[in-house]
């Protein structure tokens, strides 16, 4: 498989870009933020996404989806990154759909996947509990009770948590925090008794929530995958999410970079275009190379996920680590090279900086993934 887009993937990119740049430029995010929109995204746009087959992009055709792969999901995520469009695509169509498709039994798949495909169900993975992404530290307790379980604990950074129709929560059925053994994924109804949800307004004006579960009762059918053996399923689903967020960060980085280079070609100071100054030229060139390398690493990771999710961990770690450092560098250079204008809220560049910071934390930052690579290589 070549690390270039196929003709079909290029067409998918063009249609995603057409819709997103037309209906959801950065001003779309700005107006959702300024109006304190209760949903946090456009339902109308989400229906368009479903109609175009994006909502069920990863869902097999037998469940009403498009049956495409992670490379294609990455193509859409990259376009989302270019305009920072708030969308349930990441939480519902990439992460939750993958969790259900990979871990679900026949009944669970046929109940939820068609609804994800037609855009009528929003779902999200609830994994993080502390300030940093540490999936094995999961401590939400799931205790057997009658025919089912009782869940107690708290989750943070649950993307789309306040609008989701379904939580997929990582919980501990045995063992203790830090252990791989004893993790189980549960399907939880946000309306269930004992669930409390606090929408957290985040720096990037994208959806997130903290949720608390107090003796929430779920039945045995709510287990996704196998009891105590959820770590492998969770690893795979998280790697899929990481690959997707890396792709979003590539789109974000490139957009900031393009805007910055345009600025260098138009802004005059000291009687010259500032792009004539070698100090800025070299910084721009270094950033360009960083982005190209990160793009290749991200494509490599998405390709590895398409080949075998279980063997993609190292490629994904490389991509997410690189995407984090590259996007961080891109937005910092973007603001710096735009000068004072870059610091104003009126100017869009700050939105990219804020989103990059959130993407960096989502599913593990560059330090986390660099550490994972070191462990995988045995030193």
């Amino acid at each position, binding site marked *: 498989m070549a690390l270039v887009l196929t003709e079909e993937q290029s067409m998918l990119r063009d249609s995603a870009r057409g819709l997103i740049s037309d209906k959801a430029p950065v001003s779309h995010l700005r107006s959702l933020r300024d109006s304190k929109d209760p949903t946090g995204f456009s339902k109308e746009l989400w229906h368009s996404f479903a109609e175009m087959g994006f909502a069920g992009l990863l869902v097999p055709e037998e469940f009403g989806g498009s049956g495409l792969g992670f490379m294609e999901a990455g193509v859409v995520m990259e376009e989302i990154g270019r305009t920072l469009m708030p969308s349930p695509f990441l939480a519902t169509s990439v992460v939750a759909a993958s969790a259900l498709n990979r871990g679900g039994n026949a009944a669970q798949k046929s109940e939820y996947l068609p609804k994800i495909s037609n855009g009528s169900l929003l779902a999200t993975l609830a994994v993080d509990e502390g300030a940093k992404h540490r999936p094995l530290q999961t401590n939400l307790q799931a205790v057997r009770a009658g025919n089912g379980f009782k869940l107690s604990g708290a989750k943070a950074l649950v993307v789309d948590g306040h609008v989701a129709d379904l939580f997929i929560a990582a919980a501990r059925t045995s063992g203790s925090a830090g252990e791989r053994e004893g993790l189980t994924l549960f399907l939880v109804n946000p309306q269930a008794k004992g669930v409390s949800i606090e929408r957290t307004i985040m720096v990037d004006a994208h959806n997130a929530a903290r949720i608390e579960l107090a003796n929430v009762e779920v039945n045995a059918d709510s287990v996704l995958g196998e009891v105590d053996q959820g770590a492998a399923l969770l690893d795979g689903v998280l790697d899929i999410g990481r690959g997707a967020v890396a792709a979003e960060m590539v789109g974000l980085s490139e957009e900031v970079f393009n805007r910055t280079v345009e600025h260098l070609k138009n802004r005059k100071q000291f009687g010259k*275009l500032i792009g004539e100054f070698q100090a800025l*030229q070299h910084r721009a060139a270094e950033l360009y190379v960083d982005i190209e*390398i990160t793009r290749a690493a991200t494509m490599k990771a998405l390709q590895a996920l398409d080949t075998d999710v279980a063997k993609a961990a190292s490629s994904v770690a490389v991509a997410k680590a690189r995407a984090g450092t590259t996007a961080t560098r891109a937005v910092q250079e973007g603001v710096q090279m735009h000068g004072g204008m870059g610091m104003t809220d009126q100017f869009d560049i700050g939105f990219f900086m804020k989103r990059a910071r959130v993407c960096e934390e989502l599913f593990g930052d560059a330090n986390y993934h660099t550490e994972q690579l070191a462990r995988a290589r045995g030193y």
Partner: protein
Amino acid sequence: MSVTENVDLEQFRNETRAWLEANCPPEMRKPATSDADVFWGGRNTKFASEPQRIWFERMRDKGWTVPDWPREYGGGGLSAAEHKVLRAEMAKIGARPPLSSFGIWMLGPALLKYGNDAQKKEHLPKIAAGLIRWCQGYSEPNAGSDLASLQTRAESDGDDFVITGSKIWTSYANYADWIFCLVRTDSAAKKHDGISFILFDMTSKGVTTKPILLISGYSPFCETFFDGVRVPKSHVVGTVNRGWDVAKYLLQHERAMISGMGERGVGRPLGQIAADSVGSDAQGKLDDSMLRGRIASFDVDEAALAACAERAVDLAKAGQAHPAFSSAMKYYGTELNKRRYEILMSAGGVDALEWESERSRQGARPRAWLRTKANSIEGGTTEVMLGIVAKRILDLPGA
């Protein structure tokens, strides 16, 4: 790619794997540790070992010293996809390149594009068979980063040019049989327009070389002097006074080659090499957490660069590559290689400081470390590469 192409490629992969397994001597599956492990070919060459000879001859007979060159010039005639498979299968068993040569990396691609029929038939098969070793006459004492200001003169005299001047940083000129050289054939023209690309025998009357001792204690480069060297005009590649086109095309290949120095993913992970000298804690983690972090960051960047190199090949194949992208790769690959050796020196500690001893293989590590400092200078400095990216790819304004 069609289904039949895929099937053919899988068959090629299986055949290649089996052939390499049967034909690559075990000694040639270990990383090269010194210059003697590298076979450069040429008139005066000797093989360092019997396995080196066997491996070279078997690969030569298959055309796999230059797998993607046409068969008529001694190449393997492989498609880009097959060549990628061969490289991957060789990397999998750690097989060394059977022949290293500036003829393969630099002159060959330029001759394939700009050479006439006679030149291709004369020179390419001898490169493929390792019979002639080439060197590159580009830089001059007063023409480094500003290469196009070179002053070595070639004056017309009947059917010949008479060449006078000097070159510097001529890699292995003292071992080379022939040189590909940039000379000024029109001193009145603008600096880029009066240059020709010419080939001649290093045993010609008037050629002398003098090795330059480097900080590594080695002399891989020479000063090369031309005093009235007579060269037939038929040895000009491409058009007279249009040599800069050839030079630039060749530089892209040179930069691609040098950038490859940063992505030696095969062999033991850097972290494990470091563990030999630094030690590990009870959990198996390197016993120097800051060094461990630096190595891990390096590994991330190295793996990402390898993906980018792979993508660059795929883009070229798809006709989507930017011609100046090799400058981007050259900049990053060489800076990364310098990082690798800074890490190796730090990991090696006192052991990496020995300059002369059997134990240190005559100071192999510190000498290699010092050698890498040239990577971001030779073939165009990092600063020149960034300038090319800024102007040719990003289209930023200015000279």
